[in-house]
């Protein structure tokens, strides 16, 4: 009974492990310039980031301009987390 109970999770884990290993093998090599992630918008950013934004640091141009929504969301998450933590910490000493 207990062996059968342990067998199911082990089989599930093995199955997930096989799927994940197959997915990792199919991934492009590390730093491959032909990887799909490097062929979509990256060449355009590299070619036109300076003339479009006037900013020499391409990382900042992508971070704040092209992916501005992402950074705004990031800042909002940090703000919300910070305010939540501070609301727990502030004024505990007086209580």
């Amino acid at each position, binding site marked *: 009974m207990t062996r059968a109970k342990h067998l199911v999770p082990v089989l599930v884990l093995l199955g997930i492990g096989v799927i994940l290993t197959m997915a990792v093998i199919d991934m492009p090599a590390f730093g491959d310039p032909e990887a799909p992630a490097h062929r979509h918008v990256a060449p355009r950013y590299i070619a036109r980031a300076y*003339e*479009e*934004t*006037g*900013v*020499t*640091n391409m*990382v*900042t*141009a992508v*971070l*704040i*301009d092209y992916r*501005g*929504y992402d*950074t*705004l969301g990031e*800042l*909002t998450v*940090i*703000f919300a987390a*910070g*305010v939540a*933590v*501070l609301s727990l*910490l*502030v004024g*505990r*000493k007086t209580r």
Partner: protein
Amino acid sequence: MTTIVIKTIARVLVPFLQLFGFYIIVHGPVSPGGGFQGGVIVGASMILLALSYDLSSAEDRASHKVRIIMDSTGALLFAGIGLLCLLVGGVFLEYGIIPLPMAPAEVRGLMILLVGVAIGIHIMALAASLFLHLAEEHDT
């Protein structure tokens, strides 16, 4: 616990640390760095001050109220610049549309700098706040 050696080194170090942090924030558009990294360095200078002196001397430089105001200002400034683009007829965060007497590319560069400063203000206040309030509990 803190000796005169630590206090002197911290006193000499803190202004340079803050200057370095502001340099990293303002130089975000031209060199590696930006609001997040520079903000954390400026926040760390307040942590150094609190560790080497005491909490109240750090609290004197940046009180709880000032930190909360800076924290909110940074987030509001970023969202405000995004909304400004909306007001002048563009889409949200489309910096190039803001009507300034410059080329659109330069306006975008300027707004990238402003947003970087906003992120820096936000992060420096938050980094200092988290440490000072956590330390407050053990400082009895």
